[in-house]
């Protein structure tokens, strides 16, 4: 960073105000502005109106931002001194994040299954104290979670667009800090939730430090933090390549951490389990997509040259992720943890898309579009899956232990069928979106990474075992005496769940429209 400052105070360099394309930035600006308004709402609006005001504001902002994304769908430009690349890939990812964030917010706003909501009113109260016990059953609602979510979404919108490492770092922090807080807001099992928040924060801080370190080394190598410049420097720079390799490696560690890819996955199960389930849904879908967006930007734009090869690294982490997700998932007994390990395995599948090459060894458009497609399919399925988990409740809140799910199909057949369908999608059974996604990625990667495809298929078969265990529990086991019941959700969650399940089915049977969209979106600026 010293170098940066040195550059800034260099008397020979003149500083000119960068031109901003406000149209291209509109989605980001709308979300961040609404987040700031949300903070004011928190301060100014009376408590009884606050919840609805915040919910309305948040949804309005997300919808408006989505409309803005559609309005500028043909944009392909660099703006803000080429720090932001608003290109079809960015817009595709931004649109996806906005839709999925809207669904997550609907889940967050669920108040009929839990007194108040899934979010605790005062996260800082000492766990186990009398005040804490009162909180669990109090009607009080915490509404700061909505602006927090909006800030996180704002960061997520910038993250895949960042064409400049410093901006990417800022976006990383903007999206992460609210998430650290949100992870600690669970109304029930406060200790687990706080542990999750602390763990996520500490490990996340480490990851950020790695990213920053890598950034500094790359700056030393390329004399710029701009991805285009870094790319150019790789063929012209006279500096030691050690800087480049180390810088790239450290940068990647930070991003792999956010995307929950092994061996940087260890936070995932704990945080997914401890965080309030709607927040988990939000993290599992939106954060993952944003993180992959940044990885796309780094790998396709900043390091796309074939003069040196980072592919072995991606091979290794992809295999590690698939194996860790599938094998460790087998030993889990908590539904949320199972879904967490599933997300690790899925991250490995998505990584395969980066290994798709054209016949001349350059990175293929097919690979990029397959990643984009997969991210959408996975996002919808995982939101719906976590959303359904919130409905299984007993006297102590959500019942997520596998044994508590025994015989659920007898009491709530519709729930069980829907959840089974989502699990089949996660397992990649045909006629679900999970299969379309896997097929697209495997097809793209087959030419250049056939052994990896075989490994992926074998790990899919292994992973199928733990998805099936849940199905077996629900359908074939006998209901427990005082087992949990499936709550009837409010219309808000119902919408979110219906959309998630319907998208999983639709994209499995008719993937063509989204395939076309992803193919058209697989164009990066620069």
């Amino acid at each position, binding site marked *: 960073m010293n170098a940066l400052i040195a550059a800034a105070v260099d008397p020979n360099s003149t500083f000119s105000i960068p031109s901003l394309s406000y149209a291209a930035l509109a989605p980001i600006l709308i979300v961040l502005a609404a987040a700031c308004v949300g903070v004011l709402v928190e301060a100014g609006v009376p408590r009884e109106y606050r919840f609805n005001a915040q919910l309305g504001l948040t949804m309005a902002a997300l919808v408006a931002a989505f409309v803005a994304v559609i309005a500028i769908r043909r944009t392909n430009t660099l703006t803000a001194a080429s720090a932001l690349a608003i290109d079809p890939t960015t817009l595709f990812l931004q649109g996806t994040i906005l839709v999925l964030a809207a669904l997550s917010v609907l889940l967050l706003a669920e108040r009929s299954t839990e007194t108040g909501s899934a979010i605790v009113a005062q996260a800082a109260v000492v766990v186990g104290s009398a005040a804490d016990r009162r909180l669990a059953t109090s009607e009080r609602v915490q509404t700061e979670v909505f602006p927090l979510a909006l800030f996180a979404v704002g960061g997520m919108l910038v993250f895949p667009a960042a064409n400049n490492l410093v901006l990417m770092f800022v976006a990383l922090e903007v999206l992460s800090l609210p998430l650290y807080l949100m992870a600690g807001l669970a109304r029930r099992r406060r200790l687990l939730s706080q542990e999750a928040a602390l763990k996520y924060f500490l490990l996340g801080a480490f990851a950020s430090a790695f990213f920053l370190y890598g950034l500094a080394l790359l700056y030393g190598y390329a004399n710029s933090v701009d991805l285009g410049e870094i790319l150019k420097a790789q063929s012209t720079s006279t500096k030691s390549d050690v800087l480049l390799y180390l810088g790239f490696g450290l940068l990647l560690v930070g991003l792999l951490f956010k995307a929950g890819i092994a061996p940087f996955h260890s936070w995932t199960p704990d945080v997914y389990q401890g965080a309030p389930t709607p927040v988990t849904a939000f993290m599992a879908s939106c954060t993952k997509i944003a993180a992959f967006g940044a990885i796309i930007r780094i790998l396709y734009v900043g390091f796309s040259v074939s003069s040196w090869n980072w592919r072995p690294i991606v091979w290794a982490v992809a295999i590690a992720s698939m194996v860790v997700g599938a094998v460790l998932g087998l030993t889990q007994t908590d539904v949320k943890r199972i879904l967490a390990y599933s997300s690790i395995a899925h991250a490995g599948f998505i990584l395969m898309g980066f290994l798709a090459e054209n016949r001349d060894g350059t990175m293929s458009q097919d690979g990029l579009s397959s990643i984009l497609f997969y991210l959408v399919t996975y996002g919808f399925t995982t939101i719906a899956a976590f959303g359904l988990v919130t409905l299984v409740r007993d006297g102590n809140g959500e019942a997520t232990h596998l044994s508590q799910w025994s015989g659920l199909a007898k009491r709530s057949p519709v729930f069980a069928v829907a959840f089974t369908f989502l699990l*089949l999608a996660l397992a990649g059974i045909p006629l679900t979106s999970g299969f379309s996604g896997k097929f697209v990625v495997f097809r793209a990667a087959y030419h250049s990474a056939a052994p990896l495809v075989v490994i992926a298929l074998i790990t899919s078969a292994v992973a199928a075992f733990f998805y099936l265990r849940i199905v077996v529990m629900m359908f*074939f086991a006998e209901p427990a005496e005082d087992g949990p019941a499936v709550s009837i959700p409010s219309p808000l969650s119902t919408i979110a769940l219906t959309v998630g399940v319907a998208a999983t089915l639709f994209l499995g049977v008719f993937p063509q429209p989204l395939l076309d969209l992803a193919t058209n979106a697989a164009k990066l600026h620069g």
Partner: protein
Amino acid sequence: MHNIALIILIGIPLVGSLIIFSLPEGNDLVAKQIAFILSAVTFIYALVLTFTFNTKGARFQFEGSWVWIKSFGVHFAFGVDGIAVVLIAMSTLLVPVVVLASWNSFDTIEDAEELPRGSASGAADVGSASGAVDGAAVATATTAVVQTRSVKTYFALLLLLEVFMIGVFAATDIFLFYVLFEAMLVPMYFIIGSFGGPRRQYAAVKFFLYSLLGGLLMLASVIGVYVSSGTSSFAFTDLVGRVPTGATQKWLFLGFFIAFAIKAPLVPFHTWLPDAGAEAPSGGAALLVGVLDKVGTFGFLRYCLPLFPEASRYFAKPIMILSVIGILYAAFLAMGQRDMKRLVAYTSVAHFGFIGLGIFAFTTQGGTGAVLYMVNHGLSTGLLFIVVGFLIARGKSRLVGDYGGAAKVVPKLGAVFLIAGLSSLALPGMNTFISEFLTLVGTFTRHKALAIVATTGIILAALYVLLLYQRTMQGTLNPKVGTSASFRDLSLRELAVVTPLITLIFVLGVYPKPIIDIINPAVQATMHDIGQTDPQPHTAAVRGGK
């Protein structure tokens, strides 16, 4: 090419399934009636298609093709050749029969099968690996039998299964075939898992995982065929002859082969079948062994041979040796079984050895014999499972040792049992004899030693079938059988179930020509695809003259 004949065939059971699923709980009789009527209509319609199939016409008929996923070149394409059309006819016959056979299975406590003492030790060796799932299965087994099971779900699943069964035989697009091949697992999984015997959870999961693993390997090969052939289409006819030869073809062949070998099942991929066959309800087991397993052998003929001719020739010898091992090994295992359903499952493994032999002999006789065998085996093993199911419904036990002298009490049941058994051991005059004979002759012209060793399988088959019959039906009357009030002879419904199957067993045993005429051109087309011609018959004198 927008012929909707096959779409209608698939549509009838699909509509039926959806109607039954949406019926309110409690309308069991309506559910059964709808299932029976629609599956019967499906069968009649399939029969019409079979008889209008032009044996001198194109290889694929009733073809209909619609674009499904444009970017991949995936088509929603159906069409049948002679092999597929007879298998569809056989499958659609079995469904109404099974529906009728399962009519009362879930109304009373007839499904209260005891945990077989004999299989408990057999369970231990495989059970230790299965861990928690298996433990849970045994723990809940005692309470499971008193639970009422959703009758309509069972019949809706049967019809759904029929949809996929027809689809998988009729698909002419490899992608579509794969999709249906995998989707077929789901209804069967629930049939076993929800309506099966005491260890149904374990059996269902094992069945699903084995098939899924095979299916995923096949998916790798499907993508590989698509990428390496250089076409942008998954249509079967576009891909034949386009797969590059050499190592690529061998690897891709193995992907398909393992999937089909697990499905078939061929030794050593067979271990799921005894569990699944024993735990599935008898009707489900009849479809599982009678139809689903045929998809594996059908896949060998339809996909492995034409797509990978070079690799097929390369691997033929080891596969045939495995088939012969399967015939003998499974026969010995069948003899040692105390559980009747496991026994029947093992006999099937042995029979699939013959089918594998016939297919990989690369002769017209062998191929025709193999296809005929698939049809006949569906009929005879389907019947055997159904009859065993009748017996279990009366005796409440799957153990051979709990019966004895039963034919004295239930003579009609005993007679049907004997016919099913004799058909299974390929007695001349029965349907299976001709197919077994053809496969062996077809094998003999190429591989004499293998054919001779395989022939001993016939003797072993006589042993295990007749021993089973003798121990359950003949000899001194087991007091449990004699005193049980539920031990009545076959009812009118049950007679109606077995009559069509028995009729076909005899008719096809004497006059199989109509079916062979349909099968033959398709088998010859397959032989042409792999570039094999039948070896010329020669005598010792001719050879001496060389």
